[in-house]
């Protein structure tokens, strides 16, 4: 066994209110520079919807991630290293700026400089790339809260697995529903972005598993942009370098949660250590489709198991990191409670960001065109969920609806149990049935409730000490001035000759 520690994450989708505070916090810290305006290392998309960049999930077009190749796997874009070098002068699958949006600002000076007159002056939008006036046709979150559904929500790639009737049902006005999907880099165990870079500019940090892109090593071959199936590596069109989420590692090393986690208004975000067996990465990534999810969850080890502790120590994991792994909220959600599911495990990158799927409103039904909220039980069962299970399964379990249902059943059982505890207006047998069907006891339900609803910062973010005292390189100047690029070297992010 070769045990490593990985900073992993859980986003609780039932709690996300779609406020975009996370995106803005990230933007203010990392991407308010020239060439990076269009980048949203953290973005929040409405589901169903086409997301950012538009239809990023459609790998027939974007060619990200890995695909099965006999008993092994190969990158979907450049199927071999030789092909990558052959395509280096022109990357046939590179998304273009228009797949994201053309960044713009407004000519605010027009408001001040306008001559006195009868008309209200306007500030015209101008492109941040060319400086010319532009007609706004798209932007980040153009389809927020299902805006422009016919063009966006209906084009959602995940609807492919639904029958036409199911799709129609989803868009019936009375059943219409949505949830938010906040996305950041998954800091994968088997990242295609790293594998695709011919210059080895991307790498995974051994100590905490954060995937970073070394700015002075990047040569602008822009292969990683295609390779990441989540489209979380971005090309800076001004500096000619690619960039990506760094999980705020300077903050992590100082014991603080990343900015998007720290600012999250809905407190949906959890961060903690997972121990895993690095020798098994390849084997898991090569799993058959149906075993992919189970095998991924299996790679994470039990930090309480004496044998794991022994092996982890032998692999050089610090005692403080093992303790952090034992207290990790991610371990609780994902392994102990079975509530966390990875986004699109079928991309085979083994992502380390897990989602608690949304339960969504299950009250009410439509009878003869009339919306009826008088249900027999307080909450309808998950069978009545407005979001088809197949849709959620397409996002989180590679099509396996049973796994989604099992997760939702637990979430509902917790709700029912807590309603009974606090209000006590439900029949006792309903509570017992719900808990038994979900396979959890009252204590677990209370623990889930606690971590979901009441947990304070220290419980939601369990960050192991970085042990800088043992790492000479980690002690390099990390707090560069705003507007600079990279760490360990300070340079203005200006374009080369």
């Amino acid at each position, binding site marked *: 066994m070769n045990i490593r520690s990985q900073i992993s994450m859980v986003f609780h989708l039932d709690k996300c209110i779609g406020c975009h505070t996370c995106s803005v916090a990230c933007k203010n810290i990392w991407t308010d520079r020239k060439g990076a305006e269009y980048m949203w290392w953290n973005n929040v998309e409405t589901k169903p919807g086409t997301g950012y960049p538009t239809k990023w999930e459609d790998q027939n077009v974007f060619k990200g991630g890995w695909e099965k190749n006999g008993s092994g796997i190969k990158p979907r874009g450049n199927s071999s290293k030789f092909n990558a070098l052959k395509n280096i002068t022109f990357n046939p699958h590179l998304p273009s700026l228009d797949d994201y949006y053309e960044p713009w600002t407004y000519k605010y000076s027009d408001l001040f400089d306008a001559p006195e007159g009868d008309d209200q002056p306007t500030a015209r939008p101008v492109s941040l790339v060319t400086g010319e006036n532009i007609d706004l046709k798209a932007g980040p979150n153009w389809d927020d809260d299902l805006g422009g559904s016919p063009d966006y929500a209906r084009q959602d790639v995940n609807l492919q697995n639904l029958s036409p009737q199911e799709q129609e049902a989803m868009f019936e006005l009375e059943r219409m529903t949505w949830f938010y999907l906040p996305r950041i880099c998954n800091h994968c165990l088997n990242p295609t972005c790293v594998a695709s870079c011919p*210059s080895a500019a991307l790498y*995974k940090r051994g100590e905490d598993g954060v995937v970073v892109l070394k*700015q002075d090593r*990047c040569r602008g071959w822009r292969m990683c*942009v295609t390779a990441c199936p989540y489209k979380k590596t971005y090309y800076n*069109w001004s500096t*000619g370098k690619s960039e990506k989420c760094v999980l705020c590692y300077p903050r992590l090393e100082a014991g603080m949660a990343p900015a998007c986690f720290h600012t999250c208004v809905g407190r949906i975000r959890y961060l903690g250590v997972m121990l895993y067996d690095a020798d098994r990465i390849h084997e898991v990534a090569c799993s058959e489709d149906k075993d992919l999810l189970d095998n991924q969850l299996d790679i994470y080890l039990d930090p309480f198991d004496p044998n794991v502790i022994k092996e982890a120590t032998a692999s*050089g994991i610090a005692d403080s990191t093992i303790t952090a792994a034992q207290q990790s909220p991610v371990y609780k959600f994902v392994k102990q409670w079975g509530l966390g599911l990875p986004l699109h495990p079928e991309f085979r990158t083994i992502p380390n960001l897990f989602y608690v799927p949304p339960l969504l409103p299950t009250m009410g039904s439509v009878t003869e065109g009339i919306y009826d909220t008088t249900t027999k039980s307080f909450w309808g069962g998950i069978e009545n969920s407005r979001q088809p299970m197949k849709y959620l399964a397409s996002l989180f379990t590679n099509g396996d609806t049973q796994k989604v249902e099992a997760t939702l059943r637990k979430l509902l059982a917790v709700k029912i149990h807590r309603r009974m505890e606090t209000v006590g207006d439900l029949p006792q047998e309903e509570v017992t049935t719900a808990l038994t069907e979900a396979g959890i006891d009252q204590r677990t339900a209370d623990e889930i409730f606690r971590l979901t609803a009441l947990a304070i910062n220290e419980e939601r973010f369990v960050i192991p000490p970085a042990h800088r005292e043992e790492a000479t390189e980690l002690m390099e100047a990390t707090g560069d001035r705003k507007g600079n690029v990279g760490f360990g070297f300070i340079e203005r992010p200006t374009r080369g000759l």
Partner: protein
Amino acid sequence: MNTTAIFFVALPYTALATLIIGTLYRYMTLGFKLTSLSSQFLEGKVLFWGSQPFHWGILVVFLGHLAAFAIPGTLLAWNGEPWRLIVLEITMFAFGVAALFGLAVFIYRRITNSRIRSVTTKMDALVYILLLVQILTGLGMALLYNWGSSWFASSVTPYLRSIFVFNPQVETVAGMPFLVQLHIVTAFVIFGVLPFTRLIHFVVFPLNYIWRSYQVVVWNRNPKRIRAERSYFPGKTSVNN
């Protein structure tokens, strides 16, 4: 000093010196500015018709020049039969035309597309002018003197080699037609400015990708050593795997 000495002795040495020192300097200190400066993200459809013919064209032509420099005897022997000479000249000419076409597309794209204009620098203009002169003179020679490849092998190669052994012999090139001389001079200018333009990108061609493993993990410290070591200053060296 006469003009021959300036253009065929002083210029080559200046160019080679700036090439070597400039490249090393840029590689070691200006890492962040070492990139292909790809603009495909802003515009990809027209670029395809520029980048593919240009790069494949220039690659083959470049290898042709390299062959004439490295193995002139073999080349002369091949050219011994007129039809073989003609085949070689036509092939090289075709790849040269491809490169010219690609370059024309590059320039057209830079001028017409406003997004690309916003990422164009003065150095780009210089590169285009130099490359244009270089490719045009090359193609011109191939048309006017279609035994040029033999000329290269028999006359230019000795000159170039004499430069590299620090014993410049300019006689063979001094008597060449103007077009040929211009081609040689521009070549040296290109090499001289190379470290200060985007042309630097092919120096960092990442060939080692072929033999490296797909995944890269970098450790800032060696945790196993730290835990096992009893010495007072353990684990100072970082290791990559």
